[in-house]
């Protein structure tokens, strides 16, 4: 008797110890990983806030689109935050307000009046607003461990009706229980005994969350018990609201191609093209109903079943007094309300990818794990929209068969900020990010490095230096002799330096590069910001190597900015939950190339689009809209490149095939079109002509490169670094007149006036 009792006691004690150890183990697992999981739901990435002020170059359509992306609802008269109404030439909206790192934008009723393509005035009531910012578009979250992006919501932003409906259907006693419900367990055990397997049901929201986070979907009793234990522990560690928020962001609701749709916010975008807050009751009910079987009740594949399930949910909500029977009846009468065709994009994977890579290493693990981190970026949804639609339009025309790929990078070169990015033709899908990861030869896109190296030596070279475009054989140690060819397979004899670049003559460029020395070209590329993938061989002169569109954007950024190298930035500021700035990414200039030499290069790059290989841009741009750029084509037209800039934007576009096959395109017939289509719609400012100190302009004979007079045969005006002007002069006398600049611009850049 005593022995038996002793044994029972011993066994019980042993069981307790095991249970205790198990609890400690599970607890450790939860605290170690759940905090991280929760924090993953909170590193938020924002687009640039749209600045509103009188004089801003912004159309009513742009503002309407921005507000639409922000989820503002169109109403007849805005009365509460997040509402907008539109008139022909003005928009009225109730700004939501936002806490920016330095200051807060208040909630307020705002009127923006337009005149043409500009803002005429910004008002609140009768008061003029000098400057204000909209709340920034939320791009998604960065999940440090997995590197995926999601659309996440905070509980405060989840409509009350939705929360209550969710609880009514999934876990009535959520706010009372300790993580599990006795009734549920009993039912599960009973069902298990009856059907000899554990069937779903009876799980609390907490259990479902644990299951989603930690456990496989096998259905055993042990797993069920572990689930209950962990649920209890979770409840001990975290508040109900935190658990509910995590659940709302975690629950699985179907597939979007290869990508799992997790969380209601992403599901709302996926199925309805709207944010969770914007959905109506019947749509909320459908989403809630789908938890039970995302594929069984998939509204696209099984609309009948989905509709039935939705109506059951509505009934439950009415029974639980979440909604009135009238509301339920109205919602039941609604169609499913899917809207996949016009849906707003749920994420910008290519840009988020860039942000993630630009996060300094130390932020990836520790600081991202601080709950409530915000990352403010330079992303511009309006430019992104244009970049995508330009890419779509041009690619559909060039390649209806969907064989080719395209990628582009857009920056504002004044600040070196990346504002839009297309990683492929289907920008909506995360995948191979060609803007960052496609590494290709750049063809003639590298040539400016040769010409810049030359122009930095005003004692030897100017835009009017005569180069020889004639066949040559290059013998490098350990390599086969190499005989470069021009694209047209002809030699063009004597050409002026600027013409050789404008026409992208390979023979003249290779000769020039060899005269300057390959090492010096490598050095120039490094000064322009390109250091990876540069081979130290003569073939570099014609673009050999491995470069991503982002690399080329870095190079042309330095050129566009006048010889100041700036790292391309996507992140402006990282801010913690208290609004304290953790890290700023300040603008930093480093002068790496002489201003005067870059000025001359700008001139030659303008000639590219006026009279050289880039003339095609003016099939898209207005004749008088000044830009500068360069085409690039690689062997057999495998890669088609165009890089260039206007007065406000720099863009690099690439077209090629993922298998590196032949495209049949040159830079001028391919990427140029994407670039010009985009620029003609996105750029607001033509390239201005700003002459730095120590530059003078002179009339030159376009054939001989000699000084000549205005009005003489072949005369045209070119800029020179003081002291580098040609010594020889034609016989033609200068004509005395002073209207030089006009003729000069008309002859070269004025577009035939």
């Amino acid at each position, binding site marked *: 008797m005593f022995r038996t009792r002793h044994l029972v006691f011993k066994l019980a004690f042993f069981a307790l110890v095991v249970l205790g150890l198990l609890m400690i183990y599970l607890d450790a697992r939860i605290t170690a990983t759940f905090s991280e999981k929760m924090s993953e739901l909170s590193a938020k990435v924002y687009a640039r806030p749209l600045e509103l002020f009188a004089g801003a170059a912004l159309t009513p359509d742009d503002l309407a689109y921005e507000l639409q992306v922000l989820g503002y609802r169109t109403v007849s008269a805005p009365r509460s935050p997040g509402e907008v109404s539109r008139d022909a030439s003005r928009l009225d909206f109730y700004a939501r307000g936002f806490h920016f790192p*330095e200051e807060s934008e208040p909630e307020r009723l705002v009127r923006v009046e337009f005149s043409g*393509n500009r803002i005429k005035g910004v008002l609140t009531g009768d008061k003029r607003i*000098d400057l204000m910012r909209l709340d920034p578009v939320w791009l998604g979250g960065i999940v440090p461990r997995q590197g995926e992006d999601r659309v996440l919501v905070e509980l405060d932003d989840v409509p009350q009706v939705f929360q209550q409906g969710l609880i009514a259907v999934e876990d009535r006693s959520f706010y009372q229980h300790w993580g599990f419900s006795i009734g549920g367990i009993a039912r599960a055990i009973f069902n298990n005994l009856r059907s000899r397997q554990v069937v779903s049901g009876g799980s609390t929201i907490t259990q479902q969350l644990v299951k989603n986070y930690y456990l496989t979907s096998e259905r055993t009793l042990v797993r069920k018990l572990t689930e209950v234990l962990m649920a209890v522990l979770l409840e001990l560690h975290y508040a109900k609201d935190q658990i509910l928020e995590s659940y709302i962001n975690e629950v699985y609701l179907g597939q979007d191609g290869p990508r799992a749709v997790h969380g209601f916010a992403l599901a709302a975008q996926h199925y309805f093209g709207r944010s969770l807050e914007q959905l109506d009751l019947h749509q909320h009910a459908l989403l809630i109903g789908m938890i039970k079987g995302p594929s069984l009740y998939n509204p696209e594949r099984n609309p009948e079943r989905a509709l039935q399930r939705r109506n059951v949910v509505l009934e439950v909500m009415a029974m639980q007094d979440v909604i009135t029977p009238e509301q339920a009846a109205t919602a039941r009468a609604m169609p499913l309300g899917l809207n996949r065709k016009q849906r707003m994009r749920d994420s910008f994977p290519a840009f988020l990818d860039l942000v993630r890579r630009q996060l300094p290493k130390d932020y990836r693990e520790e600081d991202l794990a601080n709950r409530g981190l915000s990352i403010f970026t330079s992303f511009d949804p309006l430019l992104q929209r244009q970049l995508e639609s330009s890419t779509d339009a041009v690619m559909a025309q060039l390649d209806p068969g969907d064989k080719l790929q395209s990628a582009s990078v857009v920056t504002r070169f004044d*600040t070196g900020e990346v504002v839009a990015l297309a990683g492929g033709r289907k920008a909506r899908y995360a995948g191979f990010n060609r803007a960052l990861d496609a590494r290709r030869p750049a063809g003639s896109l590298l040539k400016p490095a040769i010409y810049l190296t030359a122009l930095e030596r005003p004692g030897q070279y100017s835009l009017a230096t005569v180069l020889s475009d004639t066949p040559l054989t290059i013998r490098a140690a350990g390599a086969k002799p190499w005989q470069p060819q021009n694209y047209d397979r002809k030699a063009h004899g004597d050409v002026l330096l600027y013409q050789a670049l404008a026409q992208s003559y390979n023979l003249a460029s290779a000769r020039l590069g060899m005269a300057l020395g390959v090492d010096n070209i490598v050095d120039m590329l490094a000064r322009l910001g390109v250091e990876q993938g540069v081979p130290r061989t003569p073939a570099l002169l014609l673009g050999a190597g491995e470069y991503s569109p982002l690399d080329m954007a870095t190079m042309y950024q330095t050129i566009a900015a006048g010889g100041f190298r700036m790292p391309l930035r996507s992140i*402006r500021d990282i801010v913690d939950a208290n609004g304290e700035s953790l890290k700023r990414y300040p603008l930093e200039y480093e002068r790496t190339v002489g*201003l005067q030499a870059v000025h001359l290069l700008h001139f030659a790059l303008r000639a590219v689009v006026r009279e050289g290989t880039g003339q095609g841009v003016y099939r898209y741009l207005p004749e*008088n809209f000044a830009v500068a750029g360069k085409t690039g084509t690689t062997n057999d037209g495998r890669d088609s490149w165009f890089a260039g800039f206007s007065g406000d934007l720099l863009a690099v576009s690439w077209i090629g095939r993922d298998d590196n096959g032949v495209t049949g395109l040159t830079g001028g017939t391919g990427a140029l079109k994407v670039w010009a289509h985009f620029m003609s719609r996105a750029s607001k400012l033509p390239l201005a*002509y700003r*002459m730095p100190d120590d530059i003078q302009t002179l009339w030159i004979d376009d054939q001989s490169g000699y000084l000549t007079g205005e009005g003489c045969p072949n005369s045209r005006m070119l800029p020179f670094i003081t002291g580098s002007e040609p010594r020889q002069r034609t016989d033609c006398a200068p004509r005395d007149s002073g209207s030089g600049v006009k003729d000069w611009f008309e002859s070269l850049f004025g577009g035939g006036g």
Partner: protein
Amino acid sequence: MALSHLLYLLFRSTVLGLVVLLAACSTVTPPASVPVPVEKQQLPEPKIVTPPAPVPRAPPRPTTPSPSAALQPLLAQAGQATARGDYEQALALLERAQRIDPGSAAVYLAMAQTHRASGDAAQARATAERGLLYCVSDAQCNALRAYTR
């Protein structure tokens, strides 16, 4: 000293005259006596040769009106931040100002001043050099030039 100053003035007036002339010629329809509004705004700096006023696109495209009303509060706040030694905040404000008006030499000048005040002479110089491409008055250009030395 005095001589070089005289020469400088002579040079400046010549260049200025030339620019006025060139500017007048670079307009689309240059009635000799009518000054063109575009140049009026941008004329004072001798170093800038204004390109011909763009022939309007489908909807008329005026030259960018200066968003000065939007810039002033930011410049003022940045000035205060610099004064109290909060250079990071000042630069954040100035970068915002620069995004609003990338062609504002005043913003470049304020940035150069802030970098100098924070002890970063190299950034001050680089910023001022870049700002020189945008200055529109002698006073502004000279102020910027002072930081490049």
